[in-house]
């Protein structure tokens, strides 16, 4: 509500304007009056869940120009009722962090630094590594002839921060490849 009339200095407003503690109108400036929340002109709001701990607080993602511009607690959630903790409140800085690595990288054996690598090529090389290791370390049967059908040549760790659907594909694919050392933070 920008006022057109000239404004008194803030101290006088505080003293004489019925806001002696300067917690309301006396603290407002022209600039603060013109500010709008980022949520106000978002193109859309998307329902989400906080990615940190396992309480599972509801989040609302405010998207403008195909960017997430604000993340708020979702008051509809019967679990969190709109609240977020310090970590959850930092979610926006998590997803928009300028230090996020966004390029696929490879460090060659014995190299002293990373080099960028084409994502498709990286996937192809990883597929080769898996198959080579699997072939080299395959155990079809144990000492007494008991069927093993596995490899202890490669292991996996992770999953507690991932989606159920992602964990499902990890377990399904790696088990089919014969890997058994598939683990996550739940053990830790």
């Amino acid at each position, binding site marked *: 509500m920008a006022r057109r009339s000239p404004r008194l200095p803030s101290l006088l407003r505080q003293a004489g304007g019925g806001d002696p503690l300067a917690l309301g109108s006396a603290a407002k400036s022209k600039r603060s009056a013109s500010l709008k929340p980022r949520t106000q002109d978002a193109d859309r709001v998307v329902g989400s869940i906080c990615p940190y701990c*396992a309480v599972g607080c509801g989040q609302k993602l405010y998207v403008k120009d*195909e960017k997430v511009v604000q993340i708020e607690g979702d008051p509809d959630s019967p679990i969190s009722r709109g*609240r977020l903790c310090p970590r959850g409140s930092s979610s926006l800085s998590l997803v928009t962090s300028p230090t*996020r690595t*966004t390029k696929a990288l490879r460090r060659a054996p014995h190299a002293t630094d990373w080099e960028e690598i084409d994502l498709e090529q990286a996937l192809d090389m990883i597929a080769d590594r898996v*198959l080579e290791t699997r072939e080299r370390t395959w155990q079809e049967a*144990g000492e007494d002839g008991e069927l093993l059908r596995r490899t202890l040549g490669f292991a996996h760790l992770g999953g507690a921060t991932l*989606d159920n659907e992602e964990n499902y594909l*990890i377990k399904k694919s790696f088990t089919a490849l014969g890997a058994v050392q598939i683990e996550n933070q739940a053990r830790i």
Partner: protein
Amino acid sequence: MAECHPVGFQWVMEARERGAQIIHVDPRFTRTSAIADEHVPIRVGTDIAFLGALINHVLQGGHEFREYVAAYTNAATILDEEFRDTEDLAGVFSGWDEESGSYDVSSWSYAGMEPPSAAGKREQAAKAGGSGSKTETSTGEQSHGAHGAGLEHGEPPEHDDTLQDPRCVFQVLKRHFARYTPEMVERVCGIAPAQFARVADAVVANSGRERTTAFVYSVGWTHHTVGVQYIRAASILQLLLGNIGRPGGGVMALRGHASIQGSTDIPTLYNILPGYLPMPHAGQDTSLEAYLETNTSPGGYWGHMREYTISLLKAWWGATATPENDFRFDLLPKLTGDHSIYPAVMGMRDGDVEGFFVMGENPTVGSANAKLHRLGMANLKWLVVRDLQMIESATFWKDGPEIQTGELRTEDIGTEVFFLPASAHTEKSGSFTNTQRLLQWHHKAVEPPGDCRSELHFMFHLTRRIRDKLAGSTEPRDRAVLDLTWDYPTEGEHDEPDAEAVLKEISGFEVAGGKAVDGYTALKGDGSTACGCWIYSGSYGGDANQTARRRPGSEQSWVAPDWGWAWPMNRRILYNRASADPEGRPWSERKRYVWWDEEAGEWTGDDVPDFKKDKAPGYVPDEGAEAEMALRGDEPFIMQADGKGWLYVPSGLVDGPLPAHYEPHESPARNALYPEVQANPTRQRYERDDNPYNPTAGDPGSEVFPFAMVTYRIAEHHTAGGMSRFLPYLAELAPDPFVEVSPELAALRGLEHREWATIVTTRTAIEARVLVTDRMRPLRIDGREVHTIGLPYHWGPNGLASGDSANDLLPFVLDRNVHISEFKGSTCDVRRGRRPRGPALLAYVDDYRRRAGAPTGP
């Protein structure tokens, strides 16, 4: 809880405003203690002594909820006459074999019961993979054994409903805990008898028909060499008090990651398949029938192993899975021992494991003996790290602590490392399972930047490529990959797999026509249904994503059943049949939750009843009834073979049928309860140069590490820091690692507030800022003063908030049931000043090792 699960803690605060009494038992005074009515400082690693004394208080005073205990628990069951307790055998149970370091569990059975073919016993017979010293030869699993295969259906063979028979569970329990007295609590835990009495009175006063008490725990209970038995002790207490299956009751695990419950249910864990089906064991599960024979329970819902298992095999191997080929059961890899992460890391160090995927985890900061992880990873052929930020697990070859000390040289490390950037939760759709088993869908809002992709994308396309490369192979081992169902629809510019299509497979569908099933009771054992995880069956029921439901809480009942979807069958409180009495009436109006509607002939209430909907309270099974129909209408614990809550565990555990107090592997005190057995005799130890142990109390050299140590988390950071130390707000809130010490310990060691201290174990030494605070207090243990230091563990060398990693200080030493390491309750020394730099650090630690009599180097 206020610190690690702040938004969950709002409910505790609200309960307190409504009159609930909050008791916080913790070695440290925290933000939770600040809100609690009572903070009970306890010496780390002694909770079984404390809980055991509460159990003893209940039993000696006759405070148990008698009707509940008599009807719903195995209190009346008579035990095998061969069973001997720790009280008879000076700290071990019958069946102990010193030679193998493990138990023969057959004497732990119910009288007249076939010795359990439970996993515990099976695994004791199984050979270990790897080097196999005495302490590694056997490995425990709860897996299916916990539900009691081996019981006859329904009733246990012998029972005494008066609970007077000296061999009945109730009397055994009484004798077992008789020495867990308030005086013992004072000696062991450092808690004064007056304070213990206040806690005991509060728990008893707030239990029974009209009131309930809840227990909440986190890794403070699991990070021990006797961790499973901590939870067992709480379960016994809650069953005795009638606090299971009722609103405001229970033993609630507060878990630390958004989907750590989900990654347990759909396990990225070596020992189970989705829905807690055990992985097959070599030489034993030689066919589908053998596997089902071993694992199918005669009573309760584990009686449907056939339906669950065959539906899983159909989900994975589709049309190629037929009755003639055992539904491809033989394609599953077989276990031969403990294949958990700790043996895998030692396998890396020893050259047996050559490749490693790390997805959304930071083990070189977050795992015990993180140094051994780095040494192992430096010995790999290849490593794939997927994360949002450049975490320590991806850069150890360049700037890890071992590069600083000269133990490793970058040019010598042959590990090929791929770093693949990951999508954030805002850039992909999928479900998280929260700590109360609630699946909640998060919707993709934007495209991921650059090369960032979801793990769904990575796994789908990696596996697709592998299948392309194997196409045409005639190798038998490749059938499992080539015949795998792997045809998920993709969408968008990056060919992102459709997460809902994956959820539908997890939830289950009819093979003919593809219609989604509505729950696990619709699954078939003939191959006509497919289901990737039976406990999640129904999450896509009605051909709709039930996990995406977001009906506002304000428009629903307090149970809020239309927000998300809880497994199983959208039930919010497990075993809620126990909220009603044997006749099906609520125990009290105040605590009513689920009850029998005689007129309608069905169970009803505020929640989805966790019971067959039309099974009347008076139902008695016929001879030959199977699965849930073998349980009576007044047996609420429908996953147990006998339908009872287990005060005593006849099968499924490898370290005892009852909890017993054992000291941590590294402890500042001797075991006052069982002087001849210092620590859990079954714990997994790894005596290696790269995993040295501190001498425990009473052993030569123990005076070198005189203090107890407890690691923990704070509100401002998240686990190993990958999602917090790189963010400016959180880094500013908590920039440096710190060590909490009492004013007394500060005076003893000359530590100054805000200055540096060095913390030392036989593993390594780290530095942290000193926080002198009376939140930490010395405890009198058996007449001696014991100091504890508190050490949050979030930091590592990378990110905006960097520092030494507390987990570098800890060893691998595991609970044999679940292979979780003892993060809580090691010993250490603490000294004023910063730690030495470079190779001088190694010399500094070696000096400690020499003085402690531990092996020196590497």
